[in-house]
């Protein structure tokens, strides 16, 4: 993939650690000497609602928002959310999906049903990878590192130096969790994505 003008959509459910993941990605891109912009929303939108963060980096970035159909990668922390934002993906782009189903309240109360065959639907848009990040996270003893595992998977599609990623993690997580997160990152990175 080109190392300039790259658009990454990170989406999922409020509370899944999406903003932290986008901060690490942003910082890593900064350490790579690129122009970086990121946009996110706070407040009401975060309380278990659908969340989308835009990260863009390259030689010169104007808008912090990614245009529909221009996303290089969609990194989704939840299956339904991948489908919600799939129109951001460019033709033959890459989708990395945490293999997790979180039913929204409308599904819990039985008003609507959770969409079936999300895998098939997503595959129509481009190359799709489903990652059981929760399994890896629980293996490492902390469910909260799902976000960094997924970032590790994403790293396979970006030409950033390992040093940049590690420093970006150090910059953004509490000292006592740095080692755990770097391990989580590497576990994600080692997942085959060819």
């Amino acid at each position, binding site marked *: 993939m080109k190392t300039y003008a790259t658009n990454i959509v990170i989406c999922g459910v409020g509370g899944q650690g999406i903003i932290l993941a986008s901060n690490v990605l942003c910082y890593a891109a900064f350490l790579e000497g690129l122009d*970086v*912009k990121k946009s996110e*929303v706070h407040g*009401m939108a975060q*309380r*278990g609602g*659908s969340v989308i963060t835009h990260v863009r980096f390259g030689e010169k970035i104007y808008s912090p928002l990614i*245009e529909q159909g221009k996303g290089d990668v969609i990194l989704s922390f939840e299956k339904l959310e991948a489908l919600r934002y799939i129109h951001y993906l460019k033709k033959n782009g890459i989708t990395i999906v945490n293999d997790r189903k979180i039913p929204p309240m*409308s599904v819990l109360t039985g008003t609507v049903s959770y969409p079936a065959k999300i895998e098939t639907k997503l595959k129509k848009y481009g190359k799709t990878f489903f990652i059981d990040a929760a399994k890896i996270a629980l293996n490492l003893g902390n469910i909260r590192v799902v976000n960094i595992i997924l970032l590790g998977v994403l790293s396979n599609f970006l030409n950033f130096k390992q040093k940049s990623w590690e420093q970006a993690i150090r910059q953004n997580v509490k000292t006592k969790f740095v080692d755990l997160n770097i391990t989580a990152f590497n576990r994600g990175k080692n997942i085959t994505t060819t």
Partner: protein
Amino acid sequence: MKTLLSGNEAVARGAWEAGCHVAAAYPGTPSTEIIENIVKYPEIYTEWAINEKVALEVVAGACFAGARALAAMKHVGLNVAADPFFTMGYSGVTGGLVIVSADDPGMWSSQNEQDNRHYARHAKVPILEPSDSNEAKLFTKLGFEISEKFDTPVLLRLTTRICHSTCLVDLQKRKEQKIKGYVKDIKKRLMLPAHARLRHIIVEERLKKLEKFSEVFPYNKIEWGKKTLGIITSGIAYQYAKEVFPDASFLKLSLTYPIPKNLIKRFARKVKRIIIVEEGDPVLETEIKALGIKVIGKEKIPLCGELTQNVIRTSFSRKAKAKTKKDKIPARLPVLCPGCPHRGVFYIINKLKLVTSGDIGCYTLGALPPLSAMDTCVCMGASVTNAHGMEKALGKDFSKKVVAVLGDSTFFHSGITGLANAVYNKGNLNLLILDNFTTAMTGHQPHPGTGKLARGEQGKRIPPEDVVKGCGVEFIRIVDPNYLKKTETAIKQTLEFDGVAVLIFRRPCALLVKPKPSYRIDPELCNGCKLCLRIGCPAISLEFPEDRKKPLAVIDHALCTGCGLCTQVCNRNAIIAPEQANT
């Protein structure tokens, strides 16, 4: 040195670099992180004020004393602070005064989409509109300079996509400013009619000077491209327009009131066609059209919602419009968190079928299904007064079915005046204060009820019940909302009481306490009746296992906080406590 900063972090940094001495705010998305970041700079005295009017008056006082001062608020916060804002426009400043308004196009976390650029015109004060974090920092600093140079408050107008977008920012050192000290000047600061009449003349003269300044202000600038198309824009819209019209000539306005009329005319003469790309109302468009310049604006670009590259593109291309077809996907609205102490109160309100006069905070989410327990939400504090007004229109019997609901932080913000008003005017108000010891929605800021100050140090705690008592309320009860029976009894007693009754539901926000072990469902006992789904807890869902005739409720152990509210609604004792589960 360069680093990554959000717009809000950049404003905080700009205030520090500019030598600001005093800052105050009431939290409100998307402005909250400005103060949260200013507290990192010990040189600036910083406080969470009780509301935006108070915040602005506090910093106005600091400015009278000759200090550089900054108040930050969300767009609707400036409505609350409008009273001092307008008159400070007359008084002018001694130390520089910057007022930050963070607008929320798209209403990501707001009750309306007002365009606060109108306030600058209304109050006749200059306004700066940064288009990224770098400019947010720079314009904060320039704001103080313009404020002192022209003896005026300066409005710094941000929007969600400035506040919560991050980019690379150049850092500079702090330039210390001497606090000028207080010198009595009643003609300037004591706005009785005789003085204000004189000040109004000065305000109009000041505007003329600012108009000249706007012409030479270096950040009102032309970027020449092809002369067939000229774009006039400001703020975040500039960034979007640069991507949609990469070859066009741009007039990027940063000091957008007063507008640089001659610069605009010069630009207009050189380009063939002009599009005004602005988010929100046709503010620039109206003024530019008044100059007799033909432009394309809001007849193409939408008034409602936030702009994006896509929105601008589809405004000018039918082809692009057709492309945006999407799959139908279930909405995922925000919800009360698992373990949220508000849940029990709304469950009972729904059960009793009460009319609920609501307010602004996390608890506004009680309006959504399945709790569906809120009828109104206007502005901070309106729960109390709306309920009082309903009673005055429909009588005492109606008020037996009405509760007003607001949070502890909102109570201090603007609930107290409404409460005193109801007591004084012989109301039959039933007020429920949901006291979770924090300002939760904006990310847990302290308030007088917590006694903590902006930097975390201990201040004086004001228990809400003491305020309620001080307002003359005779019926006050404090209840833990995690107990449904007690909650129901207390609400019923409140409704029966003649006069103003206040119930304080006290339990800390679920995000502030360590979760307890998760509950689980006994599949033998669960008959799939769905009663537990009525509390609207995101941790409980229904599954349809193939080997069962009836559906089965399931608790997500990663989400459950062990509050146990669901056990109180299950008729079959199918929800098992963790200690039972272990045996």
